[in-house]
């Protein structure tokens, strides 16, 4: 039995030990970035931490934040969804259009159905037709977005029912309802991702699809389901935004797809799948939300904001790739 004992040291030595300090920096780099953003924000805009402003940041971030919860699942599962912006807009116009005839709950139910259909279409194209997710959702994004315009006859949908703006503008205990929705959806997402069989399976699928399949995980079903979840999240985001503005418009999706992907990526979730976490997306959202808020408060031209966000996204991805190279 001396065999295993003498063999052991070699294999232990062969496995690399880590440099705790540097690894921690690389792993939690996004937190440091967040701290820097907070300090910078406090310096240039001292009122940033006042409760009114915090409410402002969070309720502004709620629609895209909810979308990025779903996007986190898609991306950890090794996928990508460029169609969420269109689904977001479709949700907004359907909700606004049907609020009068069906009531708020009926309209929300209709949005849910529409989003599930969109998500299932995305999931089937990616898993059954084996179309690359980038191309698949680029295509379906065009289809869903086009349909949102057709459905609304390219006209803003303005419901008469005054209650329509309830979700987007009312407060509970002094805080906007959209913030509660954002937090609840984040918590559900975080729990499902970290602690459920579903979440662990998504990590396995994104990390090594073949190994997941051989382990008996229903790969196509679960991967497809992440697109359905993201579509539902996009629908909820669309409901919140149209409710806040009191109007549903087919061009509301705008940059939602890229923004939500940027938020997930800034948090440090890998573009390659298999790695990431919901808290990362939360931090990514807070970074982008705070920056947008401060830029707006300082009246920075929107075009400069776009440039700054682009630089941040590239920096985040470069850091992720650098960290990955250091580990292997």
């Amino acid at each position, binding site marked *: 039995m001396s065999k295993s004992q003498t*063999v052991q040291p070699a294999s232990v030595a062969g*496995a*690399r030990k880590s440099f705790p300090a540097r690894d921690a920096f690389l792993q939690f780099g996004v937190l440091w970035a967040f701290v820097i953003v907070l300090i910078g924000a406090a310096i240039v805009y001292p009122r940033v931490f006042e409760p009114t402003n915090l409410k402002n940041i969070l309720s502004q971030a709620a629609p895209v934040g909810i979308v990025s919860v779903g996007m986190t699942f898609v991306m950890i599962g090794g996928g990508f969804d460029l169609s969420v912006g269109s689904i977001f807009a479709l949700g907004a116009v359907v909700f606004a259009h049907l609020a009068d005839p069906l009531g708020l709950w009926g309209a929300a139910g209709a949005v849910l159905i529409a989003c599930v259909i969109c998500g299932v279409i995305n999931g089937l194209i990616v898993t059954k037709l084996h179309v690359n997710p980038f191309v698949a959702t680029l295509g379906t994004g065009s289809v869903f977005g086009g349909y949102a315009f057709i459905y609304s006859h390219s006209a803003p949908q303005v419901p008469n029912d005054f209650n329509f703006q309830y979700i987007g503008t009312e407060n509970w205990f002094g805080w906007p309802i959209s913030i509660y929705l954002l937090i609840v959806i984040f918590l559900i997402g975080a729990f499902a991702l970290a602690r*459920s*069989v579903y979440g*662990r399976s998504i990590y396995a699928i994104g*990390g090594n699809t073949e190994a997941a399949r051989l382990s008996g995980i229903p790969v196509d079903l679960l991967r497809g389901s992440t697109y359905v979840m993201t579509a539902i999240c996009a629908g909820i985001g669309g409901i919140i935004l149209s409710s806040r503005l009191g109007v549903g418009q087919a061009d509301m999706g705008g940059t939602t797809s890229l923004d939500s992907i940027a938020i997930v990526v800034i948090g440090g979730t890998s573009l390659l799948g298999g790695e990431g976490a919901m808290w990362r997306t939360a931090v990514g959202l807070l970074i982008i939300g705070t920056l947008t808020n401060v830029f707006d408060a300082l009246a920075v031209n929107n075009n400069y904001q776009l440039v700054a966000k682009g630089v941040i996204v590239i920096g985040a991805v470069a850091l992720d790739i650098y960290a990955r190279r250091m580990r*292997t």
Partner: protein
Amino acid sequence: MQALATQSTDDTGLALRAVGVEKRYSGTYALKGVDVEAKTGTIHALVGENGAGKSTFLGIIAGRVVPTNGSVEIFGKPHVFGAPRQARRLGIATIYQELTIVPALSAQANVFLGQPLSQAGLLDERGMRRRFEELAAQMSVTIRPDAVAGRLSVADQQMLEIMRGVQSGARLILFDEPTTSLAPPEREALFRLMRKLRAEGATMMFVSHNLEEVLDISDVVTVFRDGQLSGSAPRADWTKPSLIRAMVGHDVVEYRRVERKAPARGAAPLLSAKAVSVPGAIEAVDLSVQPGEILGIGGLVGSGRTSLLRALAGLEPRSTGELAVNGEGVAWPLTPRAALRAGIVLVPEDRKAQGLVLGMSAMDNIAIARFSEVSRFGVISGRRVAESARRVAREFGFAENRIGATVRNLSGGNQQKVLLGKARFREPRILLVDEPTRGIDVGAKDEIMATLRRLADDGLGIIVVSSDLEEVVAASDRIIVMSEGRKVAEIDQSAAPAKVQDILNAAFKVMTHE
């Protein structure tokens, strides 16, 4: 091949001189200062256990890995690290295990990749064709220049890479485990080519786990252990046992066949498969496994042995056959999930590509095999994951305190243990094991063979496929031999142990008849 013969510019006659080469990866030494010299016109083998440092060393010579310390001279000139182009300029070509062929291009275009012949800025197709044919003739290679590279066999693709190296004027050719995916005749062809290149003045250095081929082809064998040189001497001074001793630091009996009591021949076999066919790969193969029996499948590359295993595991959607488990008929599995439901678990050949989620911890890798055991209402219990993983780790001789380690950072042997542990955690009735010891060192090989025997003693039925026929003979109670998609022989080892030659005879008899 004047490029090879004339250029021995330095006086020492050394193709390579490495002094005090050291490599540290985030605090751990992969190489702790080694000195290696290689004379021009020799074949130099690097051997050692996994993690011993031989591949790191090869990477440094190839110019891909930058050493932390030390110096390397190539043909008397200082080596430039981290710049593959510079390495090429110094006359180094490297043939990696993962070949760098561009599949969509022609064989000829691959040979001239990155250095096409041109005239006045235009590609000189005719000149390249002529040169390709010259090279092919010189190296006794029969590959059509316009063949699509991606459709060639692995052996032919490897030949193309060697041709590319020679064409670029390489005088020092490095091979990283060149024979792992080659069949015996292809292996022979490669060795013939290596000898030919040596006769023309080229120097070669290769990493291998196969000690027989090391002793067969090399002039000098250098053994690494634990990041240091454990020995370096001309081939004549080595024997297989002395090599193993230098590698692991003590004697290991390789492929010792352990007598097992013959499994009970019950009325119903644990698994019985009839008329298994996969279009284009295997035809009407019957096999059965008793509880507690290890069935080996022998055969050459391309004989259908892997297809047979994949079909049983539900990985061949076009396969057909009849399956009975414990005497009860079961629908033929067309998906891995169906096979798993029937109690059939596959331990795949490529643990990195198919077996493990490298970014996950060892315990999570084990847990994904059977979530129902570690969760309730879809919620995973971290405590139960850790408990289950610890139990599996104890059973498979894997350090319990490392179950939280990311699988990517484990050695090959430990990864293989996690893979087997994961399959075990699924509680299969039949275990299909594809190439259980590929790419792992001698010591860990022995442990894994012992594990398979122990699982069989627990009543599992085990089917082992390996390209290493000695391993098949050592591991199994009964062997079926495959050739050209058919079962051509069945050898029962309970009476007398078989020899590798028996399997080869059975396999080749069919081939020579046709």
